[in-house]
Structures are given as structure tokens and as C-alpha cells.
């Protein structure tokens, strides 16, 4: 049986976690002061790929388009999925790319990877641009069957198919889980609610083994890293970067802040009169909760 060959596309994004993110006084992101990290949805995509590593011993390549320092996103992804190969497509010409131009770069990269890809994974969306098109567009350019909102999947190695469960959320209708079986190769975008489930001892032993390997590999991630400039990648210059981007952003509007509906009272913990008031309020709330 042919071993599975997987690719994951990931993105370097601002780290929105507390202590790492910084905003300008007008409320917009201060990119210079904000640290960068592997996008949270990219992380979930890597986690989904790791499932195939544990279950099927798949070979995993992770790629990203970004500045030279985006290698840390690849490193973090490697630690999550025990990637064998890391590709970074980095060139000034790639700058200013919209999702379509990014898809072109990634598609070219994936096609350049060793062996034919069976499954390509991407995150659900980017957390900085809130775009979710790069994945589907890359799938379209690759000509792979596209399955979105995947919450779990398995591969039938004999039939060379994937069986994926997808979460469908429609307004006013209860959530639906759709099961799709598709022949390889496929492109999966992973839903944020994705969970890997390892239910047997052998799977858990493999999980521990690959996790340890991932940690070791990520520590020396430069050994698996290959950086491509535009010439090395061999992509058509008119289809990538700003030149290849049909999207024009002509204005960005601030999202208005929602009005607070909660009414808060401020109490001083060192003031005993205040404490008495708090206790009285709690007592009142509790007595209202007691079912008589």
C-alpha cells in the first residue's frame, strides 16, 4: 500500500493572545509591537494532519508563503504535526498578495513537492484578515476535490478514499453533520471544532512516539526547512504578489463597538461597608435561586 503523502498550508499571523498583542490608540492593530505566531486555524489544520501521521504513518510537508521570519510558523506547525518537510516561499515579489495570488504561490509549491499529494489541509480562515478563500482557491487551482468544515476524517487506504465529517451551520436550522466519501486527492479545510480521537492503545503509543519526534524535529527545524524565492519556485510572476491580485482594498472601516448591556457596580474590597453590600446582594441572588 502506498503511504499517504500530505501537505498543510499555514499562515504567520499576529498573536492576539494577551500580553503579545498591541493596539494603536485608535484601536487598530499595532503590527510593529505585536508578536507573530502560527495562525490558530493553521494550528488546527496541522493538528488534523497529525491525525494521519499517527493513524497511517503519513509523510507531511508544511508550507507557507511569508516573510523570512515566517519560519517560526513552520516550526510551530512542525511541533504540532511532526512534519517531515518544511517549505517557505519568501520573496519581495510575493508581498501584497491577495488570497488568489497566495493560492497560486501555494499551488505551485505543492506541485513542486516530492511525490503526488494525497491530501492537502488548510485552516478554516485567517485570524487577521478573516479571509477563508485561500484554501478553496488553492484546491481549485490544484484541481483537487474540495471538502470544507471538516470536523473529523478517516482514510481508507485500500480504496484510496477519504471519509470526512463536515459541520454545516445554517441560520435558523439545527447544525447538520454531513459525511462525504471522496477519492484521493482531496483538499480539506478544517473546522475550528475539529478533534482528533485516538481510541486504541496502539494509536496512543504512536501518538506519544510521533509527538516526541515532533518535539525533537521542531527543536532543529532548520534541518527540514527549505526556503524558495520566486525563481527557485518557478512561478509565473504575473500571477503572484500584488501583480497577481485582482482584489483592491479601497477603504477599511472600523467595526463599531457594541454597547455594553451589562450593568456593573464597582465595590472596593478593602471597604467593609462595600463588602457588606456585596454579601447582601449575593444573599438576595441566592434566595431568588432557591426553588421553594
Amino acid at each position, binding site marked *: 500500500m502506498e503511504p499517504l503523502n500530505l501537505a498543510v498550508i499555514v499562515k504567520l499571523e499576529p498573536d492576539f493572545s494577551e500580553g503579545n498583542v498591541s493596539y494603536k490608540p485608535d484601536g487598530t492593530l499595532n503590527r510593529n509591537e505585536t508578536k507573530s505566531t502560527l495562525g490558530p486555524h493553521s494550528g488546527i489544520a496541522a493538528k488534523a494532519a497529525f491525525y494521519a501521521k499517527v493513524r497511517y504513518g503519513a509523510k507531511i510537508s508544511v508550507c507557507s508563503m511569508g516573510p523570512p521570519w515566517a519560519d517560526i510558523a513552520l516550526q510551530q506547525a512542525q511541533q504540532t504535526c511532526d512534519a517531515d518537510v518544511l517549505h517557505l516561499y519568501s520573496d519581495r515579489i510575493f508581498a501584497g498578495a491577495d488570497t488568489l495570488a497566495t493560492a497560486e504561490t501555494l499551488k505551485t509549491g505543492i506541485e513542486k513537492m516530492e511525490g503526488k499529494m494525497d491530501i492537502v489541509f488548510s485552516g478554516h480562515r485567517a485570524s487577521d484578515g478573516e479571509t477563508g478563500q485561500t484554501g478553496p482557491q488553492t484546491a481549485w487551482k490544484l484541481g483537487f476535490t474540495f471538502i470544507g468544515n471538516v470536523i473529523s476524517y478517516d482514510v481508507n487506504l485500500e480504496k484510496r478514499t477519504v471519509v470526512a465529517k463536515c459541520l454545516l451551520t445554517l441560520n435558523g436550522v439545527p447544525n447538520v453533520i454531513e459525511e462525504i466519501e471522496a477519492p484521493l486527492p482531496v483538499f480539506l479545510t478544517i473546522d475550528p471544532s475539529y478533534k482528533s480521537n485516538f*481510541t*486504541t*492503545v496502539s494509536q496512543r*503509543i504512536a501518538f*506519544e512516539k510521533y509527538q516526541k519526534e515532533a518535539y525533537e524535529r521542531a527543536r532543529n527545524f532548520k534541518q527540514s526547512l527549505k526556503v524558495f524565492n520566486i525563481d527557485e519556485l518557478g512561478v509565473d510572476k504575473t500571477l503572484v504578489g500584488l501583480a497577481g491580485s485582482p482584489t483592491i482594498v479601497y477603504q477599511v472601516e472600523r467595526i463599531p463597538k457594541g454597547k455594553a448591556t451589562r450593568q456593573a457596580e464597582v465595590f472596593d474590597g478593602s471597604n467593609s461597608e462595600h463588602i457588606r453590600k456585596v454579601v447582601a446582594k449575593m444573599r438576595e441572588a441566592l434566595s431568588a435561586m432557591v426553588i421553594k
Partner: protein
Amino acid sequence: MEKYDVAIIGGGSAGLAALKQLSTLGKQAVLLEAGKKVGVKNISGGILYSKKPNKGRVYNVEDIYGQNFVNEAPLQRKITKYLLHATSKDKVFSMDLTAAHEYQSNFGYSVLMNELNAWFAQSADESAQKCGGGIVPGVHVNNISWDDEKERTIIQTDELDEFQVKAVIAADGVNSEVAQITRARPKFSAVQLYQGVKAIVKLPEDIINETFAIGADDGEAHLFAGDITLNHLGGGFLYTNRDTLSVGAVYHFDSLLDSPIEPNTLLDALLKNPMITELIKDEVPVRGKIDKTLEKEKQMQIRFAVTKLIKTWYEIRDVYLSSSRRKELIKTGKFNSEDEIKSKLSETREKMSSQYGIQFKTDYVEDEYGAKLIPDGKRCRMKKPYHKNVLFVGDAAGRGVFVGPRIEGLNVGIDDGVRAANAIARALEKNNFSQGYLGEYYTKSIEESPYTKDMKEIDKEYLKIFIDATKDVPKDILSAKHSLVLKLMSSGAIRSMAAKFVNVLGYERLLPVIESQESYVKVPTELAERSGKTISSSYTPSIPLLADRIAKLNYNDDKVSHIKVLNPNNDFMKKLVMLCPTKCYSEENGQVTIQHEGCIECGTCSEQTDWKHPRGEKGINYRYG
């Protein structure tokens, strides 16, 4: 259903030794550990010994993990001095028991279980994977069943699909659920147990060296008896680790049931003893008062800045006051020289006091509170440590050597682990897992262990060393009975005869005489009063409240309680309100109820509750252990 040769339940030092040994013998074994990582549920005193008995052999850590063990494993300090102190208020009478500590020993190192077990696990896991096995953390075994027709043993867990094995090693500790599932033994009763509580005290490496006047790699063990017992049967200990101290109180559980007292009170009594206060003494920053008239946001900013500054100060200070870490950070280029670290430290200190009004006072710092039940091997070792194809090791089998100041559990469990592994490897070769071929063989091997002998009989050589150490004790302190025994034992020829006589009579009958109010409380207190040195304390330690100790612990909460109260109004349960080390029990209108959230899984309540370990990954996560 998946099939494996051996399942080991529990990733403590005994289970891990079994895994390592089986793998070294080329046998396939999987170890299931309930904690998220191996080591997070383990706690010990603790000293790890390597022994060389005159008769028979034991399996030591270096036999299992390699002769380079001492250099590779994360050990704390080599215990080079071993002292017993009798206390009464500010008076302490000390006896040097180093000779007893070194008796038939290769070494004794102070250890912290979290990191040591993680190290054991890494080594054992690597070997196990080569044989198709390995360690699976985060899994709680809830049942073992036998299908005699198909000759199958099936392991069921809360987390994974059931699987099949040929043999099982139960290494799930003093509160062994496997023992209950198999009904191999009843739950241990109070008279068979000790309850231990421990605090990890933070103290920089160089200060430890200075306070104890020891070299960078040397360590000391101190035992305490006397008024610090608050009239209970037991005592205290203090062991030096690299940059922490383990301070703990261990008491006969039946003595605590007789007159219930909060375990943390016993620990506090120890910490308040002037000798210990002086040993744990450090310099501690105290936050200045924040100006309440400032804007709320400004106050918050100051609070955060102070927290960060204190953290930085501790970090630099820990480096500055540790010769090894100083060298390491200079080598890695983080600092250029020792002077640079020193000036960085004083710079931070200056900023703390000048900008934020932080002051420094003499006090001590506690980092972790923990508790554990300890099975007294003399009273509760399983005579037949097996059931069908399940072999019990270490605490699960009720094994440990506790004779006077001789306190050994880890090395006993490790020896058991190897013996169980050897027995199973032999059974695998013949594919014979019958009780006669496996269980009886293992029992025989365990009975041959010198440790078992020490659980059964008084070792007259050891007794001599102990008596020699007490030569300065005025004999008239002792009761007529005790002084007669001592007199008899002091003479070589009579000692041999007397020891023989005692062993014929049965060691167990003598225990109530040895382990009595007289030996733990009365004699040491009087001894300290009459012949002790006065030690004055230079400060009053701010001992944390139990609530603060619990707040510092790290839990992965489970909504469902792993403990169920069976009889909410019986006497035992009412005493638990006092005896639970984290106060999980409370009594209202004569009914005892549990709040399991603060439970540290010691098992103090297990005898009369429906007690299970939490599900995989849930519950307490010790940082030191």
C-alpha cells in the same frame, strides 16, 4: 480487540522499573498512567536509596537504568549526613545517624518525584517502543475481566477501547484500584498506614550550602521527634534538595484517628520549630501599599509592574545564588560574567525599593503542599502479592521498610517492579500464566528479597548501629521497660540472643512497644528539655493558610467527583472533616459531604468511601512531587 503481552497499571517508580526491565528482556509491555504526564501524580518524602545487603540481592536503580544513573538522572543532593533531633520548644538534642543511613547502602539521594519519574519514563518508554510497547498517559483503568474459556484478560479504561493482555502488573499505588477490582486484598486499614504531608520550601542553592554548611553536591536529612508531634505518633523530616527543601510530617494514621488533628497543623508545628525556622530562612520581598487615590487603571499598572519586577528579581537571584546555573548562563551567553548578574540583581533590587517601595524581610517561601498515604510494610505487605495473572508491586502491594529512622519506599517498589517483570518474562517464555507458575514464583522471589526480610524481622546489626548513635542519651529518661531493653541490646552477645528471641516471638508483637507515645513524644521531649541546646529563632515565619496552599496547587478539574461518600454520618467520616489534608469534607447537621475540587488524591478517606482515581488527565498535577 488489540493484544499486548503485558499491561502495567500506574506510572510511578515501581511501574516504570517493571516496564524498563520487561523491555530490557525484550518483552512487549504497555504502561497506563492516569496523569496527563508521568510524574504529575507522584509524591514522596523523599530519598532514593541504592542498597547492598550482606545477604541476598536487591535490584537497584543503577541495575535497571545503567551504571551511569547517578550522573544522568535528575537527582537532587547526595545525603551525606543524617540526623535525628529531639525537640522541646526552643531546645533541640541531636543525634548523628549517618552510620545507620549508610548501613548496607551504596547511596541515598534526595529526589523530587515529578522530574525523576519523568526521567525514568523517558528511558523506559524508549526501550518499550523497541519491543512494540510504550507508555500511554492520561488513561484510567476502571476494570479488568477474565474470559477463562478463551484465556483472555481484558483491560477496560475510561478513555480507550478495551484490549487484551497475557499478564498485568498492578503498580497503582497505596490506593490501588486494581486490588479492589481483583479483590486481591482488602483496603488498608488505619493501623497499617501513615499519613504524610509535605511542603516544598524554596531556597536558593548557595543559601542551602551556607545554612547547612555543606558542599554544592552534598545534602542532609533531618528527622524530628518530640513536642513537634503535638502528642501524636510520628515525626517530621527535612531533606535538602538542590534549590528547595522538603519539609514534612509523617504520622501513624490510627494515632491521628484517635485524636484528630489537621495535617497542616502538624506541618506548621514543624515549621514553627526554631531550628527549622532558621534552616528555611530566606529574604523575601514585601509589596508596598498602592496609593488608593490614584486612578484605578494606574493602580492596576503598578500592581502588574510590581508582580513582574518581583518575578524578575527571583529569576536573577536564583541564577546568581546557584553556581551551576551561573556557569550555565554565562556559557550560553545570556550573561557575560558573574559581576554582570550581580549588578543586574542589585539594579533590580534598587528599582524595587526606590520606585515601588518594596521592602525585604526575613521569611521563608513555600512552593508546594502535598500529601500521601504510606503503607507500613511491617503491617500490611501482601503475603501473596498476586491474583490470577496480576502481580502487585510497591505501594499497591503494601510494601515499604519503615523501621525507626530507616524510611524506604522507592527502592523497595523498584526492586518489586524488577522481580515482577522477571517473573512475567519467564511466564511469557513458557506461555504459562497460571497462579502456580507465575504468581507463586513471583511470591517466592519477593520473599527472597532482603527488603521483605527487613519487613519481617529486626536486623540486629542495624539495631546496634542505632543504639550506638543514642549513646549520649541519659538512660534515666527511659522507662524501666525501655531501659531494660536498651541495656540488653547494648551488649553484643545478649543482643544477638534477644533479637533472635524477638523474631521468634514475632516482630509485630514488639511494634506497639517500639512505636509508642514514649518513643515518639515523651522520651524525645524530655531529652531535649534536659540535654538539648537552645536555639533561638530570629524571625516569625509567615506560614501560609491551608486555603493559600491549596490555591497554589494546579488542578485539572473534573466536574464529576471521583470519590463518593458511602455513609455520611459515621464516625470515620466525621473525623475526616479534620483529617483530610485539603479539607474536602464538611459536616452540616450531622451529615458529612464532600467537595472534591481540592482533592490531592492522597486516599486518607479511601477506607470508607467509594474511592477511585480521577479519570485520565484529571485531578492534581504536582510540580515537584
